[in-house]
């Protein structure tokens, strides 16, 4: 039975790729022919899917997928895929073209990892390949956002998040593997976020990763979510060590020196609220909707940033830390003094808040860049400042960072927004980087951690309770 199917597959393969002489030496032409190379199963997987599946609709589904991919290629901004009722956006690459590339480089053996992310309000799975030369390739990237579930609450509710993760995770993993064109057998390792984040969500991702690793006999890597953010720029821009990272998200505000895989030095962190949280609270205060960042930015466009004076927290201090709770309070007090708010008041408040944030970042990041130079860390002419986290989407902040980097001779590296916010590509990539760096895989008894500072030696500034340092 099995050999019959295999024969049919080969016939189909020949029909698809044309009958070419089987080269005894793989390096001789036609090398591009996957059959000549002895091929891996996934070379023909789109053919296999029909043969192996017990379900008739698969063929239709396959052509639907191809049409969706074509749509994604022509208009990636508008493209949306709806396998469930919630929005799924996918980063689709031409599978056929990729497959040819994959098989025509036999000397550059690629390692392929499945990545799983569920630490906050995004359920995500991805498949990423890494060549021996360190070059990475995203084979599949699926993210399901829970924004709608949390919108009514103006913030992420942990129990709601955990409930949404468990309903979606297995489907997303299957979808990512399917999209990647690689079979589970050909995946070399499983990487899942095991902290820091919301325990309920982390457990769902970690258990899914462990179960798949166990059943398929692959190594399991428990990845620090922050390490994922830190290493993303090496996948997207090939940034070399050492570099400086500014992580600005709803949960974190940190300046981290990235010396190498697993070698991180925290230079600054927030002593109270994260920057993204300050954006969300400002939006909530003026009833602008959730998530707050884009809403505040939109409202600020027509505002006068000079009308309402707001503090520039920590500006001028030698330590590189941040503080946003005082700024948040100042916005509230200014808003209450003006209440009831006119449209213009809202715009002015948002503009003033955004300016205060931008100027604070200019000071904090500027000092960090100067320290980077002063410590003689820069091997190359233009060392990189890498930005990560959802707040990196704010154009006012980007502008400040770009000009700052220009004036101080740094390269400003901002991965695509999709890879700045939470995603599983960065988790798969962090796993690949750890493996390539010779760091060993983790046991399946690994525990998830709600708190897990990237820099284990840095002292805790906030939230150091019985569970340890927060960030």
């Amino acid at each position, binding site marked *: 039975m099995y050999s019959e199917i295999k024969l049919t597959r080969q016939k189909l393969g020949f029909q698809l790729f044309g009958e070419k002489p089987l080269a005894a030496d793989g390096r001789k032409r036609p090398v591009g022919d996957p059959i000549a190379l002895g091929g891996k199963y996934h070379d023909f997987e789109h053919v296999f899917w029909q043969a192996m599946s017990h379900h008739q609709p698969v063929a239709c589904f396959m052509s639907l997928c191809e049409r969706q991919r074509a749509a994604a290629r022509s208009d990636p901004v508008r493209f949306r895929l709806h396998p469930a009722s919630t929005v799924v956006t996918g980063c689709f690459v031409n599978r056929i073209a990729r497959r040819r590339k994959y098989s025509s480089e036999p000397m550059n053996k690629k390692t392929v990892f499945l990545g799983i992310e569920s630490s906050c309000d995004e359920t995500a799975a991805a498949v990423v390949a890494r060549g021996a030369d360190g070059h990475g390739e995203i084979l599949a990237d699926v993210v399901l956002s829970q924004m709608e579930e949390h919108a009514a609450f103006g913030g992420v509710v942990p129990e709601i998040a955990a409930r949404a993760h468990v309903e979606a995770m*297995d489907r997303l993993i299957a979808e990512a593997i399917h999209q990647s064109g690689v079979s589970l057998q050909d995946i070399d390792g499983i990487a899942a976020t095991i902290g820091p984040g919301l325990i309920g969500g982390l457990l769902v991702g970690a258990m899914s990763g462990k179960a798949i690793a166990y059943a398929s006999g692959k190594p399991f890597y428990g990845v620090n979510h922050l390490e994922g953010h830190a290493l993303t720029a090496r996948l997207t821009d090939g940034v070399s060590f050492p570099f400086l990272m500014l992580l600005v998200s709803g949960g974190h505000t940190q300046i981290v020196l990235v010396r190498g895989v697993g070698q991180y030095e925290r230079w600054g962190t927030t002593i109270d609220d994260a920057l993204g949280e300050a954006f969300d609270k400002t939006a909530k205060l003026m009833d602008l909707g959730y998530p707050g960042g884009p809403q505040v930015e939109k409202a600020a466009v027509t505002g006068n940033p000079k009308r309402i004076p707001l503090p520039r927290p920590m500006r001028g201090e030698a330590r590189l830390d941040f503080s946003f709770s005082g700024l948040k309070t100042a916005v509230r007090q200014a808003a209450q003094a003006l209440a009831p708010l006119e449209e213009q008041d809202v715009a002015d408040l948002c503009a003033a808040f955004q300016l205060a944030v931008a100027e604070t970042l200019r000071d904090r990041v500027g000092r960090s860049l100067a320290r980077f130079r002063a410590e003689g860390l820069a091997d190359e002419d233009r060392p990189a400042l890498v930005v990560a986290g959802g707040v990196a989407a704010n154009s006012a902040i980007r502008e400040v960072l770009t000009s700052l980097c220009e004036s101080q001779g740094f390269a400003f590296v901002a991965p695509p927004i999709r890879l700045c916010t939470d995603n599983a590509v960065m988790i798969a990539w962090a796993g690949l980087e750890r493996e390539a760096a010779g760091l060993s895989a983790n046991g399946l008894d690994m525990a998830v951690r709600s708190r897990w500072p990237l820099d284990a030696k840095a002292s805790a500034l906030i939230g150091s309770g019985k569970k340890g340092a927060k960030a």
Partner: protein
Amino acid sequence: MLILALDTAQADCAACLFETESATVLSRTVETIGKGHAERLMAVIDETLQKAGKAPSGFDRVAVNIGPGSFTGVRIGVSTARALAVATGAECVGVSTLSAIGRQALRFATGRAVLATIDARRGEAYAQVFDAQGRALNPPATYAYGALEELLREHDAVAFGTGAVAAGVETGGDVTGAEIDSIARLGREPMPGQPVSPLYLRAPDAKPQTGFAVARR
């Protein structure tokens, strides 16, 4: 068919391998740990499969306890079961703690209906009524302690489980929780194909914050 049963919804972290043709449990691992299920579960599964001489993918169906129970515990089990199904191609089905308790109560052969209960704390119990053949007579739900007596009268049932004990209702025998063997045996019944979801029976503890925003004109 070989069924791998998993239970992390209660104090136990448990797995067993059940063969349907002979209706026998081939191997079983039960660790009563209270917490830390996420760290132990894969080892418990591995031990169970190894004792039966099976490979890590050596089963045709995964049956998992979907609760009600610890929300976190239930999610550990359900996400593991669903991911195992993705990796191995096995079927995945859910079994509720209440149906397992209902089945176990039949051993006491009262000949009457069974009210299966689990203490939900906060003065409430998760409960469901089964007839003497083990068929469900109502959907599982959350009841105030005080409402259990009426449920018993209505169905002329005998109460079992921790909910009844906490409510001070007389029980027909000592059934403290779902046993892994019951999860496996009941795992034969459900039709696969539907996504296996946790049975929480209680909404998330969250409500929209009011009065935060400043007045707007």
